[in-house]
């Protein structure tokens, strides 16, 4: 197995990068309860869907997308 210490470090950095990104997005949901997130209460056009609801659904989908990318990168790393 041609694995070097540098690869080990790279994998650990990747884990922390994805976790950090995920946590930033996750805690951004609390903006809904602050004055900086007031704009999220607005409706999207003529629909009754608000920015808050859109954010909720988007975050779930983004988290799953992040996991998909992480899995893909891990698989690429294992193959190489």
């Amino acid at each position, binding site marked *: *197995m041609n*694995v*070097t*210490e540098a690869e*080990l*470090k790279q*994998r*650990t950095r990747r*884990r922390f990068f*994805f*976790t950090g990104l*995920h*946590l930033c997005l*996750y*805690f951004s*949901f*609390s903006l*809904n*309860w*602050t004055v900086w*997130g007031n704009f*999220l*209460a607005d*409706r999207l056009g003529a*629909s*009754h*869907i*608000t*920015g*808050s*609801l859109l954010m*909720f*659904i988007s*975050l*779930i*989908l983004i*988290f*799953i997308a*992040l*996991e*998909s990318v*992480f*899995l893909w990168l*891990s698989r690429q790393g*294992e193959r190489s």
Partner: protein
Amino acid sequence: MRHLLRNSFLIWMCSLQAHSALAAGAIEGEVTRQPVNQTAIIMFLIFVVATLFITWRASRATTTSSVFYNAGGQITGAQNGMAIAGDFMSAASFLGITGLMFIGGFDGLILSLGAFGAWPVLMFLFAKRVRNLGSFTFIDVISQRLERNPIRLVTAFSTIVVVVMYLIAQMVGAGKLIQLLFGLPYELALIIVSGLVLGYVAFGGMLATTWVQIIKAILLLTGVTLIAFLLLARLDFSFSGLLEQATLNHPKGEAILSSGVIFKDPVQILTIQVSMLFGTVGLPHILMRLFTVPDMRQAKLSAYYASLFIGYFYIALLVLGFGAIAFVYNAPEFFDESGRLIGGSNMAAIHIASAVGGDVLTGFMSAVCFATILAVVAGLTLSGAAAISHDVYAEVLKQGEPDPKTELRLTRISVFLIGLAAVLLGIAFQHENVAFIATIPMVVSASVTFPMLLLSLFWGGFTTRGAIWGALVGLSTSIVLIVLGPQVWVSVLGNSEALFPYDYPALFTMPLAFAVMIAVSKLDASPRAATDRDNYQALLWRAEFGESAPSGQAGSV
């Protein structure tokens, strides 16, 4: 008049449910026993017969401790992902979140996102490394590099605290829920739950528990999909139309489409987010599921599939929550003479099933709720039994060399004792406010298990002394702040104002536990500390690659 009554009911429920619906127990306070629901009972009996058949099949394969604890490591990633979803999607999720949305609309979603946010973290940080290092429990992972006996005793103790508290909340919630849904007496409900779980776990071990959880997850996802479909079909599949109908019915109008109806304080939101995310990641019965798959790749896939199923579930609950406001709020048959929702707000999910699917769908969802309780309690019981028989007996008392038959027998005895304790504690706490008991597992898990696991896997300077001091500080401050908080200081002890303002103190206790673990580890100059630091090199390599490091090729990261 009815509208006014509902308004006052809403305000009263907002203050109550902001606490209780966050808890793992789905039903709080006194409930009125409902008439016997024959449809629900028949559907539940079908579930029981199917799962007992699976248990019988599994019991023939469960001849060793290994098969008992981790199903022989033969579960696939997709199956395990579904089982994790089945283990985690409790009746509290289905009933509690829908109920909270019924009261406050969007604010209820903080619980959904809080719980869902844990799965990516589990995948990014832990799935692979934990799978590569452990055998049966997460304690195996931590004790790989730290001093075995003290670490196992401390972590086994925190695991048992988490499992017992979670179990009490589940059993009290289960007894009341079954009273409501099936019309069965509270005590009988507890005995049925405990008896069935004993059957599943004691004879079928992890294999039977896994299949019970998979079947339950499929049933629950089918049920919420069906309800969401029928709800949207009534409004030409317009989600916006559903929201519009909800705003017309709810006294808060369009305010329910964004934040602020129940929760106002952003710090309170952060306390919930921290507790839900890091608490879920550290739950022992969830981590234990990572050992049921054959390799590290399947472990990662487990977390991924769990995310897919749980993410879908919470998006479906979004429809159900607003659907309940749209179709239950204006239906007098779901309110009693005083204007209260029959069974309380946590029954909104069942009422919406009645509104769109009649008695058959109500019976189905009631049976699913019962199955949900069984699956969650089974996972908890197995995890508690493993902590006693594997972590304490086999690894501490027998120093990792137990007699296999004695260990398996002790595991089954532990399962029986946990089942008995669950019934007795469930009866003892029948008339108590269990919201605070349900809070403890998440906060303790976030403040003890998560920091220990993270530092043992990612920091070379972590020592046994740091782990023990940090765990004790995390555990004790969690319990003290919960006691001083609104759920115990005000709701249980009857004081007018809480000494600590938040229900979930993990926002404060988790960083404190981290700080103590790091500070004590850095100051630790004992001989054991040097061994702990040296052990990290080899552990890191095995954690990442699943094999020992080639000579001279491992370093700290």
